[in-house]
């Protein structure tokens, strides 16, 4: 009479299934896997390799490493980096040399692929770990990475 045996087997599998969720119900005191995001904002720390946003670090006397060589602009797959450079006279050698004017970075277009940081010969740009990049208006997403009045660190050659 498979009629009764498969009823019995059916109920047995149903009960084992319920035992799994029951176990989780009883041990739910151990804390949930979900993060309460807005509340744990100050304790939430990202891993140090997290790709939040591309930034250009400046040292204490406002100097950076970007020589304006445009390697990152070429490497970027979706044109989210624009380098505005102008001719300048190099102090020691007196030759004409490219000087960086503005390193424009469109965070809105960036797909966080990391090819620009890979291509940069002087490690001028680095990943920042902020994860709240949303803004209310798109123009705020276009950023200039080198701070006003900053200049190239002496002795950095590409």
């Amino acid at each position, binding site marked *: 009479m498979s009629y009764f045996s498969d009823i019995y087997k059916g109920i047995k599998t*149903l009960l084992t299934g*319920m035992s*799994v*969720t029951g176990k*989780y*119900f009883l041990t*739910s005191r151990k804390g*949930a*896997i*979900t993060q309460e995001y807005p509340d744990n904002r100050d304790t939430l720390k990202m891993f140090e390799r997290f790709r939040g946003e591309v930034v250009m670090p400046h040292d204490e006397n406002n100097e950076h490493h970007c020589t304006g060589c445009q390697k990152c602009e070429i490497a970027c797959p979706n044109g989210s980096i624009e380098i505005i450079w102008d001719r300048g006279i190099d102090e020691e050698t007196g030759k004409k040399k490219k000087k960086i004017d503005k390193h424009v970075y469109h965070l809105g277009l960036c797909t966080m692929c990391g090819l620009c940081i890979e291509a940069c010969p002087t490690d001028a740009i680095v990943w920042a770990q902020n994860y709240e990049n949303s803004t209310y208006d798109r123009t705020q997403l276009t950023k200039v990475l080198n701070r006003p009045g900053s200049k190239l660190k002496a002795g950095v050659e590409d």
Partner: protein
Amino acid sequence: MSTMNIALSITKTIQDWLIGMMPEGVASISAMVIVALIYLAIFAVAGLYLVLLERKVAAWFQLRIGPNRVGYWGLLQTMADALKLVSKELTGTIKADKFLYNLAPYFVIVSSLMALAVFPFTKEFQAFDINIGIFFLIAISSIGVIGILLGGWSSNNKFALIGAMRSGVQTISYELSVGLSLLTMVLLTGSLQLSEIVETQKDGWLILQGHVPAIIAFMIYMIAGTAETNRAPFDMVEAESELGAGFHTEYSGMKFAYFFLAEFINMFIIAAVATTVFFGAWLSPFGITESLPWLGVFWFLGKTLVLVFLMMWFRWTFPRLRIDQLLTLEWKYLLPINLANIVIMAIIVWLNLTIKF
């Protein structure tokens, strides 16, 4: 002791109080209106807290925290939901059948609230103690289906139509086994009146008296009960992954709130019927709190909440049955077992092998 039970039989006390003020006929009608308003208020709030209980229990099953933002420990969450739903705009499809579309929610909410009147919360604390109690309950719960069918058909949406047809088929076939399983228990008690049933359970709950067939009847009743309220393994009516929101896709605002609230009150009703029939409504296990009839409410609600938790446990563990498997389960498995069960129970009652304390 006597001071305690003055306020117990609410209908009589309100009626006597009113008769003093106005003529006979008007008094009884206004008494009924007052009782109905009290019940409506209590069970609207009870429905809200059932929804919150469901969301909290679901969260604990799923390693989540559940609503904890609105009010301390999330207590006001469903209150906020209700207010949101009240303030929402009542949208609807243009080509919908306007009259039936608006009528559907009232069918559902009325049928679930009417069924509440019959439950024995404590000794005489019962709105209407009519002598065909269980028969009345089953009849009322079949009206709810008409509301769902109307809602699904009239909102002129293909998914809603499929959902409504599924619910029609499902509820009609599962009412059969709800009725039959309650019938097996009525064999033991001999009367349909709910207070009578509780009376006979004074010497041992029915589930103990009827031992084996009663337990089988209880299991069948729980399965059919969950199917009756379109919940858990049988929720093809609003199967999220197949039909989106099923029959109440086109409803919004207060109309949706009626459907939503009615589902939870139905769940409460199914659990409450199970407690009255199987577990002796307000009778404490060995008559320990017989002296204080007021404690009966605590026993009644406690048992009902245990059964409600059981139904929630079903919901958050089992996948969904397909519509034809659902019908084969009913017609090929539950019905034959039910009929066999009635015969066994009849033999037991005839040879009175029931266990009496």
